[in-house]
């Protein structure tokens, strides 16, 4: 995939977790029809991912394994890729209207690179969680979940959302952003 994406969804995590083992095959059929373009795109990724034909899994099969609670550790990557499809169906996708998709551009930095800048801006909740994977779905615990690195999924609970909003409001209302920006520029000049 040559482009960068950051997707945002308003979502109740419980609704997502309930899908596992729900046996709701109608839900799967509905999703495959409603989001057929994305399904095709992800099926193409799965074809590229499979080293041998025997390893090939389709989106339909991955979704079925989740709703029928027949998870396989060999399909950790596939379940994560399907998360976007499930989130779009269970939650509400939020539009990215940032200038030139700035939000997506930021994914090319590692979290440790961004943290100093986010800290300077006073948005500690975002600094703590940006590019930090904390979504276990469809697994019950970390031991089950296995390892996957990409794409990264981060869930900001409603409590964290409240904290983040409060920090953003403070950083704006106190005009600290401008002051901190100057501090950063001075730091840059010193390090050149």
């Amino acid at each position: 995939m040559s482009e960068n994406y950051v997707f945002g969804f308003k979502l109740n995590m419980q609704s997502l977790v309930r899908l596992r083992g729900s046996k709701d095959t109608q839900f799967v059929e509905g999703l495959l029809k409603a989001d057929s373009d994305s399904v095709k795109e992800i099926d193409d990724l799965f074809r590229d991912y499979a080293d041998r034909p025997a390893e090939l899994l389709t989106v339909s099969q991955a979704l079925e394994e989740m709703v029928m609670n027949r998870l396989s550790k060999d399909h950790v990557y596939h379940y994560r890729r399907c998360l976007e499809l499930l989130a779009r169906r269970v939650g509400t996708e939020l539009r990215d209207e940032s200038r030139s998709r700035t939000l997506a551009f930021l994914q090319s930095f590692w979290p440790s690179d961004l943290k100093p800048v986010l800290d300077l801006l006073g948005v500690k909740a975002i600094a703590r969680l940006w590019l930090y994977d904390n979504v276990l779905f469809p697994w019950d615990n970390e031991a089950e979940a296995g390892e996957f690195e990409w794409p990264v999924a981060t869930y900001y609970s409603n409590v964290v959302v409240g904290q983040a909003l409060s920090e953003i409001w403070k950083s704006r209302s106190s005009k600290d952003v401008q002051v901190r920006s100057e501090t950063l520029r001075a730091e840059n000049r010193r390090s050149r």
Partner: protein
Amino acid sequence: MSRFDRKLYEQKTDDPDDVMADMRDAIRQLHEWFKEVEKNEDRTRSKATTDSQASGDGLLIIVDGDQ
């Protein structure tokens, strides 16, 4: 606090000094998303539960693309 790594930003952007402007723009977008999530949220209920991950609406962010 770790230092702002200007060299790293030079590799990623034409003008590393613009990173702050980019960051503010990104936060502006996240702010919109946070506001959208909090809309109609019952904060009293969410504070009462011990499992904040599971209660009410939250924001799920999926970051994908080239690293």
